[in-house]
């Protein structure tokens, strides 16, 4: 099974992605998590130490450094996973697509998006979960290009901007032929927020409550699961995990 997590910046995609990946792994799935943010930080919600996360190898950077160009044969995705992936908490295998933090001295045109697409589309998911935590906004959803049969998790908070971006993400996912689309009303303070999102998106919507444990984890660069595994937000993501694995859904 393949899952992409998308939405406006700052709505909690990475918190949902990392926690979801770990809960799926704890439920017995083999899980590969792809960090598609060009300022990668998914590792923190997967339980890695912040200084480690900051220096994790990234596929595109490593390939460029080794002299790989667009003209060379495409590397085997599982080989990339073995060479550049890292083991995170609960058995999740994390792979970082690209890290953009300095001006380039080599051509990296379209690199981060292209790497996202190739990793997400080429990693086989017959007997495992491949979960992509996308870059903020709609652009990376176009690039990742999930297929019919994949699941798209669209995260929004209560802001009008986040809801509008979520609405567009659902429309784009539908145009890609994807049926399994679920909305997440994150940082939810009242039931109306999820109800509103449901009416706008016209897909099943789950609420993740506003949760001090998530805020605390965010300040410190830690995983909500490690700050408080019984917190309301973690519980809600557990329900989301169950829903995603429910093949009848």
């Amino acid at each position, binding site marked *: 099974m393949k899952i992409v997590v998308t939405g406006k910046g700052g*709505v909690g995609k990475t918190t949902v992605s990392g926690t979801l990946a770990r809960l799926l792994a704890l439920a017995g799935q083999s899980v590969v998590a792809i960090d598609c943010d060009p300022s990668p930080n998914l590792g923190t919600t997967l339980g890695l130490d912040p200084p480690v996360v900051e220096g994790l190898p990234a596929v595109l950077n490593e390939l460029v450094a080794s002299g790989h160009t667009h003209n060379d044969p495409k590397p085997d995705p599982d080989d990339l996973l073995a060479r550049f992936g890292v083991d995170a908490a609960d058995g999740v295998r994390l792979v970082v697509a690209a890290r953009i933090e*300095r001006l380039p001295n080599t051509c990296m045109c379209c690199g981060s998006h292209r790497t996202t697409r190739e990793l997400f589309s080429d990693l086989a998911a017959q007997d495992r979960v491949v979960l992509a935590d996308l870059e903020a*906004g709609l652009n990376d959803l176009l690039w990742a290009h999930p297929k019919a049969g994949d699941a798209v998790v669209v995260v929004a908070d209560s802001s009008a901007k986040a809801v509008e971006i979520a609405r567009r993400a659902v429309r784009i996912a539908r145009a890609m032929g994807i049926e399994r689309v679920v909305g997440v009303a994150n940082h939810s303070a009242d039931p109306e927020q999820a109800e509103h999102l449901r009416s706008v998106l016209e897909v099943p919507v789950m609420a993740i409550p506003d949760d001090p444990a998530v805020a605390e984890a965010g300040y410190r660069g830690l995983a909500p699961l490690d700050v408080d595994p019984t917190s309301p937000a973690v519980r809600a993501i557990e329900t989301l995990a169950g829903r995603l694995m429910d093949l009848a859904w």
Partner: protein
Amino acid sequence: MRVVVVGSGGAGKSVISGLLARLLARSGRRVLAVDLDPNPGLAWSIGVAPSDEGLPEGVVTAREGGLYGWGLAGGIDPAEGAERFSTPGPDGVRYLCPGKIARADHVVTHSLGAVQAILDATGPSWDIVGDIEAGTTCPYEGYTRFADQAVVVVTQSWRSGLAAHRLSQLLSDIPLTVVASQLADGGQPGRLDPAIRVPFDPAVAQAERRGEPTLDACPDSPVVRAVEDLMGLLVAKESASGQLGR
């Protein structure tokens, strides 16, 4: 001044850009607010009607050396573009946008190249305030090249501090002003020392929920006062760099 506002997603780039553009306009300046994020946002923060359309057909053409290989069609004076292709907003702000991603087949990169050509040709009679997509990709790909100053917006979260640190490295060739955003009482952002501290204001969060510009929904908010301070700082940096003969 030519300022670009950068930062992690959800840090408050659009709110701060929109406020800054309108406050500059109220102070008598001619302001072009450029919305370079392909996701909707800045129009609501300024208070102009959002549109998904980029520049009109026939205005954009393939051009070597332009961003992504695109630029303005021949016969169109890029120096007139700021006025001609922008729409009027409150307080006299002009709003320029290369378009938004609305559909799966939508390409806004072509129009982006033309908007960059306009920005390159827009003279000092204009102040430019640019809002870009979250994260590090856009500065890397050249969206920020019009700017001679950057505002780095950072929250208290570790990931926002990391993004701000990476953005500061990417933009190290122009003066940076660090703005701490959505600060809780006594809150401190990590890593970078902010010149301006913008407190969290529930009234602004409510306005964001309704999609209303901060300046109209909560004109007395401490957020507005902090962005006034930011404006003063940016103006001072502009005149300082002018005296150095930039």
